[in-house]
């Protein structure tokens, strides 16, 4: 293969690795609203707010 062929392969592999790292990080950083206390429907006297 010509030298520029290897260059293209290297660039593509690098791009895939960077994209994959960014997607993984975005997933790890994605936020949520976590309910605690493990209350189940029907339990407790109060809920949602005080």
């Amino acid at each position: 293969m010509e030298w520029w062929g290897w260059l293209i392969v290297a660039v593509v592999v690098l791009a895939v690795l960077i994209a994959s790292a960014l997607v993984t990080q975005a997933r790890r950083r994605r936020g949520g609203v976590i309910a605690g206390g493990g209350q189940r429907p029907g339990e407790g006297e109060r809920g949602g707010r005080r």
Partner: protein
Amino acid sequence: MTRYVRASELVKKPVVTFDGEDVAQVKDILFEAADGSVRGFTLAGRGLFSGPLKQTLAAGRVHGLGPDAVVIRDGTALSGDDQPAVGVPGGGDVMGATALTVKGTELGKVVDVIIEGSRQPVVAGYEVESSGPPRRRVLLPVLRPVGVSGDMVVVPDAVVDFAAGDLAGFAEAARGLRHRLEEE
């Protein structure tokens, strides 16, 4: 005047100190299912490649919860690795959970959580998207017993009568529901 904000508006907000240092960004909002009180936040780093941080931020350490940033006094407001996290055991992420009335009527999927911003922020309601066509989003206030888990949010039947279309009408809806529940 009570200020309501969507939880999604707080996620990814920068955490800034009085010195203007941008120390982290909000990742998760942690609340106590039993009383709705917001206990704190998990954090993520600010860099492009930085992931979640081990440090957490307790709600009591927040100086200001504005539309653009969460302000803290300084970096010591964040819990250290040696301190207990603000995480509350059990439960799960309510985003995507099914909203159900106590009589068993499915209202749709929870797409956001409404937080009443005050000195001690509390979960004041849920934004729910109905499943059947047409898809419609409504804001449901919650004031009374409600079961919360990662899969299901159970609300009293009365909240259906006080659904609001947007945040502007939410305060009125919450007042109406409070009135109704006091009369019962």
